[in-house]
């Protein structure tokens, strides 16, 4: 029996969202038929592939190596120049894509899990549970984002985990609020009633029936959290609470604050450019997704 087993690895999303496939087809159609969002999608895919390649060590593995004199300006030999230790700014920039994608993914996942679960539970059960969760996120969002971020990051001390956790736990409120509203709308729809009629429990109704129907909200929010996490990482790096031990665009931009007066602009330029492209791509893609997935905007 342990001979050849062909793994039929169907991506999980395909089977789960089958009932609403036409929506995804519509989305796919909208994005692939708009040149700008098509390019944006390609840019995002490019960064993800780049991050995958650097994390496996195939690309930019020797970013820490000294390749020339310190602060050499950009030239044919040193694309984007070198930094204070004579390391290639170009390789650092590429290696930092891995950090950025990791930060974006982990932050969005943390906020997705917290926001979705709390929002779904609040919207679905209502009553006292709802009151408590609403109170909780009202409280949370009463502390301005940056102050809370700074406070949490400061207490946890510098490090990569700090960046992940502080960004994750501060960015779930918006999603939670939207999911709660959507679940409230959906829980009394016919399909949901039908699910309870055939004996589906609360858990099954929330996760198998309602959440797939509001998955577009989750995806739009995912892309927003992703890009804002990349942008917030820069602020954390400036405050000295950023990623340690590997290059990130935030630390590169932060480093350049002392270099600019000496005319060393390439580190700032490289990091800003790399960040600009992925954030811009995510912004355009987010807009395209919103236009395609939000039924209210259809045809506008």
């Amino acid at each position, binding site marked *: 029996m342990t001979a050849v087993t062909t793994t039929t690895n169907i991506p999980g999303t395909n089977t789960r969202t089958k009932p609403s496939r036409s929506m995804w087809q519509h989305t796919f159609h909208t994005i692939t038929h708009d040149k700008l969002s098509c390019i944006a999608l390609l840019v995002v895919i490019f960064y993800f592939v780049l991050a995958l390649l650097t994390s496996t060590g195939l690309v930019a593995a020797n970013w820490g190596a000294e390749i020339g004199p310190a602060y050499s300006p950009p030239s044919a030999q040193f694309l984007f120049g070198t930094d204070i230790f004579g390391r290639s700014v170009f390789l650092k920039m590429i290696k930092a894509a891995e950090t950025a994608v990791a930060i974006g993914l982990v932050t969005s996942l943390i906020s997705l899990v917290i926001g979705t679960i709390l929002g779904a539970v609040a919207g679905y059960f209502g009553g006292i549970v709802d009151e408590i969760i609403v109170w909780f996120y009202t409280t949370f969002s009463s502390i*301005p984002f940056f*102050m809370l971020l700074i406070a949490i990051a400061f207490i946890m001390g510098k490090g990569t985990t700090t960046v992940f956790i502080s960004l994750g736990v501060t960015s779930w409120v918006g999603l939670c609020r939207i999911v709660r509203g959507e679940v409230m709308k959906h829980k009394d729809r016919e399909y949901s009633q039908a699910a309870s009629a055939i004996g589906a429990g609360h858990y099954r109704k929330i996760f198998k029936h309602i959440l797939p129907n509001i998955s577009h909200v989750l995806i739009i929010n995912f892309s927003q959290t992703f890009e804002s996490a990349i942008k917030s990482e820069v602020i954390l790096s400036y405050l000295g609470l950023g990623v340690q031990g590997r290059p990130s665009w935030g630390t590169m*931009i932060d480093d350049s604050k002392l270099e600019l007066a000496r005319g060393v602009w390439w580190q*700032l330029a490289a990091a*800003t450019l790399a960040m600009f492209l992925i*954030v811009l791509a995510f912004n355009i893609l987010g807009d395209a997704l919103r236009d395609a997935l939000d039924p209210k905007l259809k045809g506008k």
Partner: protein
Amino acid sequence: MNMYSYILRRLLYVIPVLLGVCFIIFIIFNVVAPDPAYVLLGRHATIEQINQLHKELGTDLPFWNQYLNTVKTAFTFDFGSSWSSKQQISEMIKAGAGPSLTLTVPLFIITFIVSISIALLVSFYRGGFIDKFVLLLSIAMMSISSLAYILFGQWFFAYKLGWFEIAGYEPGFPNFIPYTVLPVLLYLAFSWGPDTRFYRSMILDEVYQDYVRTARAKGVGELSIMFKHVLKNAMVPILTYGIIQIPMLFLGLLLAESFFGIPGLGNITIKALNTSDFPVIKAMTILSALAFIVFGVITDVLYTIVDPRMKLK
């Protein structure tokens, strides 16, 4: 439900939220935070010294007592004194509020005027070249890190070209202007984007309403429709959006203030971070949360008064 009971309920809701905010701050600073004794006394402190310090800071009290003290500071504004400069924090905040406001109030007003003008312009030519171009430009400009704007702006416009002061501050009305122009312009560069996009979508929500078609049908001019009909109706969400931003004005501009050497609240916060000055950061967190809660209530109450449909929800 009538308006007054809604407003009363909204006002009363401040109490649990305030208690909750204090609880989060208490958890962060009193429970999770490392023992202040290690920060203040270093590695070679004796047990007596540590105990003495705990007593002074009130960290030897039971947790519920410490929590009550946190709540108390939110009402009395008695935040104690800074660890690094030994100054009273309430005095530091009073001194820092002025410079912060000279930076944030002009910024707020200019950003509002610029964004709403651009939003009106692009929604007037909606779907056209200007609309698409401005939208793309706004997305592009908000995709650049704020730190990059500040670094580049300070280096290029102030250092290279010498158009503005590089850093520094002078109190008094006309004196501060040369120091605040550049930070305000740099912040405008990346804050007009999201604002314009929001205002534009609010205006566009109104543009397709029936009353606009009616106005057009009876022969009202396009400009008059835009300013008299559409803008008036779109003003409700726009003003709400504006009011919510006001508490941020008191916080100052974290990054710009420390880069341009403006002794405002943002600068105080960053200095406190660099010196591990717990009480100052705690005070700033409480203060900003308070401002946020108060303006949240004001917004909600104004909303009910301006838009009678709200209270039905």
